[in-house]
């Protein structure tokens, strides 16, 4: 950098030649700078840049530096820092926008470069680690290769040794074989020699024997003799017979007789054995036929040719055999028949047994799957049956229900039953029925109450009439007397109380309870009442849906409003009071559940209203 600085100073003075040189220099220098930057950390780099730039441009050489920069930038393809010169003479002006653009672009470039650099660095690191890894792998593989090579060499060595051994053994074997052969030949030669010697010796021995025999026998040895007190008789009591040709023939005959006897005996034994075996065979055959006959029918059903024909053959054979008394025939004639039929049957039996075996093995192999399948078929049939039955039962139930409902419909309102039938499930129906009965009761009560109220109203009317009459008379009196208002007021109050007292008298038990609590009619009581209602809702026995309760609440509130209004405006609207009174009374009888019952009543009413809807 210092070097570069020294170069710049003279360069800055004047000539363009220098500048060109300069550019070449700078072209070199940033690259070197860059390389240095790569080596250095980013912070000192920026500092360096700063210092460098501060050193680069001074108060004096602004123009030069600008022009230098312009040149540099233009060489790098940036737009010129100067404004488009109109004339060559006129001094070009620095375009600040261009400068800023250039700077921005440069900064962007710088950032890009930095990013690229970072990327390159990370990649470099990655590559370095990869390289390390690969080198490790390489080393390992090399080791493995080495070991395997060593192993291979060892194995080859062993192989070679074994081959060597094998060769040796082969050699030994060959030698042994040779030895054996040699020994055998020796044995053979020895044997022949021995035999030869033996023969020679035996001949000699025989000669000697002969000679000895001659010597011993020809000497007329007196010693060779038998001293017997007296000759004994033969064991069989017969006398000895002369040796003649006859006796020889007789002996022959006897011998042959003995042999014949023996052979006859053996033949008899063999015959007996044969007979027994035949018996066994026949029995076996019979048993086989009896065993295979059920199968035969099956096979016939199946129209299986091979087994069918065989079995029919068997049948024929059996018939033949039973017809002919084959027992007495010699084996040759019967043998083929018997053996063939037995063979056939045996084949059938074998195949049958094999089949059974296969089945058994299958069952064993598949565990209980096969059985499951079989039972599943049954199951399916069964389930189908059952489903059918269920269907039938359902239908029956339906018809019964319909009948019942028709019966009910005849008893109940047609509209409601139809509605019930259509809209509700059985449970609901049941519940609704209960409710219905409850409502009915309530309705009855209402009717009763209404009656009492009408009576009371009649009475009231009568009283009012009387009152009116009284009033008229009183007014007449007053009109006549023209006394003070106070008296009149007190009279009025009295009148009111009398009225209330009359109403109390109608149903005193009902009236006492609402008094313990707050009267529904009180304007402040309405919110309390709603809250209570919501509270008591879960406990309510004939719970209707929340929305219903809500509607009921709203109803109630409206009722309460209604209730308040008559009490407030009672003195003014007497005619309306009469109808509204119904409501207030209806809410009264069950103060605790009153709201509920009231709500239910409203609910019922709503229902009734609803019923009218469709």
């Amino acid at each position, binding site marked *: 950098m210092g070097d570069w600085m020294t170069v710049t100073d003279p360069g800055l003075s004047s000539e363009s030649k220098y500048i060109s040189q300069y550019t070449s220099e700078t072209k070199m220098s940033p690259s070197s700078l860059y390389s240095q930057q790569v080596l250095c950390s980013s912070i000192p780099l920026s500092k360096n840049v700063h210092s460098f730039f501060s050193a680069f441009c001074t108060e004096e050489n602004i123009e030069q530096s600008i022009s230098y920069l312009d040149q540099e930038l233009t060489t790098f393809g940036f737009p010129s820092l100067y404004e488009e010169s109109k004339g060559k003479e006129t001094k070009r002006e620095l375009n600040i926008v261009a400068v800023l653009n250039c700077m921005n672009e440069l900064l962007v470039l710088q950032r890009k470069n930095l990013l690229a650099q970072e990327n390159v660095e990370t990649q470099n690191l990655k590559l370095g680690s990869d390289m390390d890894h690969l080198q490790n792998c390489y080393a390992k593989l090399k080791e493995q290769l080495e070991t395997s090579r060593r192993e291979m060499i060892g194995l080859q060595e062993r192989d070679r040794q074994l081959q060597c051994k094998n060769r040796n053994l082969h050699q030994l074997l060959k030698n042994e074989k040779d030895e054996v052969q040699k020994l055998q030949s020796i044995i053979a030669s020895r044997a022949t020699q021995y035999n030869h010697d033996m023969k020679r010796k035996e001949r000699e021995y025989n000669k000697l024997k002969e000679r000895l025999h001659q010597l011993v026998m020809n000497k007329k*040895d007196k010693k060779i003799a038998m001293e017997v*007190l007296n000759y004994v008789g*033969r064991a069989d009591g017969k006398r000895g017979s002369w040796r003649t040709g006859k006796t020889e023939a007789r*002996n*022959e005959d006897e*011998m042959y007789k003995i042999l014949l006897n023996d052979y006859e005996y053996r033949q008899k034994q063999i015959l007996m054995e044969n007979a027994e075996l035949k018996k066994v065979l026949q029995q076996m055959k019979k048993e086989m036929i009896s065993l295979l006959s059920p199968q035969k029918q099956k096979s016939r059903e199946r129209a299986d040719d091979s087994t069918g024909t065989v079995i029919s053959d068997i049948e024929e054979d059996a018939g033949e055999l039973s017809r002919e008394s084959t027992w007495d025939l010699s084996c040759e004639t019967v043998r083929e028949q018997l053996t063939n039929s037995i063979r056939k049957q045996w084949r059938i039996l074998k195949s049958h047994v094999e089949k059974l075996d296969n089945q058994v093995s299958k069952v064993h192999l598949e565990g209980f799957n096969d059985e499951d399948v079989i039972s599943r078929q049954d199951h399916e049939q069964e389930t189908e049956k059952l489903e059918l039955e269920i269907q039938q039962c359902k239908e029956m139930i339906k018809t019964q229900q319909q009948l019942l409902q028709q019966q009910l419909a005849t008893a109940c309102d047609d509209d409601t039953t139809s509605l019930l039938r259509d809209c509700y499930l059985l449970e609901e129906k049941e519940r609704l029925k209960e409710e219905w009965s409850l409502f009915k009761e309530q309705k009855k009560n209402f009717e009763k109450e209404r009656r009492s109220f009408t009576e009371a109203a009649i009475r009231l009317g009568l009283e009012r009439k009387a009152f009116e009459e009284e009033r008229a008379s009183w007014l007449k009196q007053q009109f006549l007397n023209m006394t003070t208002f106070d008296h009149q007021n007190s009279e009025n109050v009295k009148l009111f109380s009398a009225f209330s007292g009359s109403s109390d008298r109608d149903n005193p038990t009902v009236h006492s309870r609402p008094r313990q609590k707050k009267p529904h009619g009180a304007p402040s009581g309405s919110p309390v009442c709603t809250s209570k209602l919501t509270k008591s809702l879960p406990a309510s026995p004939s719970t209707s849906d929340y929305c219903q309760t809500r509607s009921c609440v709203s109803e109630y509130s409206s009722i309460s409003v209604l209730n308040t209004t008559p009490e407030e405006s009672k003195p003014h609207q007497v005619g309306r009071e009469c109808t509204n009174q119904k409501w207030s009374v209806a809410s009264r009888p069950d103060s605790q559940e009153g709201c509920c019952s009231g709500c239910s009543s409203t609910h019922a009413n709503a229902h009734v209203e609803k019923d009218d809807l469709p």
Partner: protein
Amino acid sequence: MNFSEVFKLSSLLCKFSPDGKYLASCVQYRLVVRDANTLQIRQLYTCLDQIQHIEWSADSLFILCALYKRGLVQVWSLEQPEWHCKIDEGSAGLVASCWSPDGRHILNTTEFHLRITVWSLCTKSVSYIKYPKACQQGITFTRDGRYLALAERRDCKDYVSILVCSDWQLLRHFDTDTQDLAGIEWAPNGCVLAAWDSCLEYKILVYSLDGRLLSTFCAYEWSLGIKSVAWSPSSQFLAVGSYDGKVRILNHVTWKMITEFGHPATISNPKIVVYKEAEKSPPLVLGRLAFPAPRAAAGPLSSTESKYEVASVPVSLQTLKPAADRANPRIGIGALAFSPDSCFLATRSDSVPTAVWIWDVQKLRLLAVLEQLSAVRCFQWDPRQARLAICTGGSKVYLWSPAGCVSVQVPGEGDFQVLSVCWHLSGDSLALLSKDHFCLCFLETEQGVGTAFGQRGDHT
């Protein structure tokens, strides 16, 4: 089980008469004939020298006593004690003597097997049979006594001659295809003759009575061959024991091998019952020293008791290592015998000398193995039932039956070393022979054996 008192005996010469009435025994040069039941002496004959061989005639009327050293045969009659007969073979010498089945002829084999002289007790006539072969079993009579088969050797070839015993006429004469015929044996039915080669070659030939070759059987080559042969009493099977430690059983229809009984040293099949003789030290008597005195000093009472224990398989039997450089190596099946009902076969493998193998012939499998404490000397089947008597040269006799087996201590003074056993015809009694004594063992009922499984019989 009862035991008789002990009688003197020499050269193991003690024989029941074929009718089962008498018992002949020899003491040096005396021949004593006793009643087989009461053991009272019926006759006493004195011979010229030490008796080397005795044989009852088939009708139990005569006994021949062979005095080989002197070349003499003396015949005694049981009916006529004063009757006597002496046959002198003179300078020709004598190596074997036997009765013909009719009980009226005596066949004497001269030394060097120069000839066989047939002496008749009925007439003065003497017959000679030339060229008899010096072999293991060269003379065999059929059961019915009609025929004699004789092994011959002429011009280095083996021949078999079949003679009619009634007049000693030659019936058949044929050569056998053998290198060195070792033995011949008639089948019990008298119609088939088995002939086998010497141990150098495994070869057994079966001939019909009329001399036709029925079959030849050769199990293997280049090895020591047949060691023992036995016919089953039913003539149905021919058991051939060989040096390879196997018994091969041929059938009488095709004369082919039915089965092969190997004699392995270890028995691992749990179906096979292995009876192992176990020594049981006698209970200590109070006042005696605890440590056992040496056997010789302890005297007769020292003989330890023994019993059979059923060993749990696998069992490995004691085997002898044969000396390969000696002749007649102790390997192979040295003895084999069928039970009288042909249901069982008892065998002894010489390489496992302490064991007796009992095979079930009906099922063709090994049934039981009896392992004794010492080498088995001899065994013999009860002639009436499947009951095997075994002796090992000790003071005990062992009995096996399908129900089980017992070890019986022979009572008496001193050690009675049973070297041989001999059944009575009825199977009711058993003669036990030691070197110079013999005694009879009476088996009362088969219950005694049947129930006393693995127990020691009483010996009162």
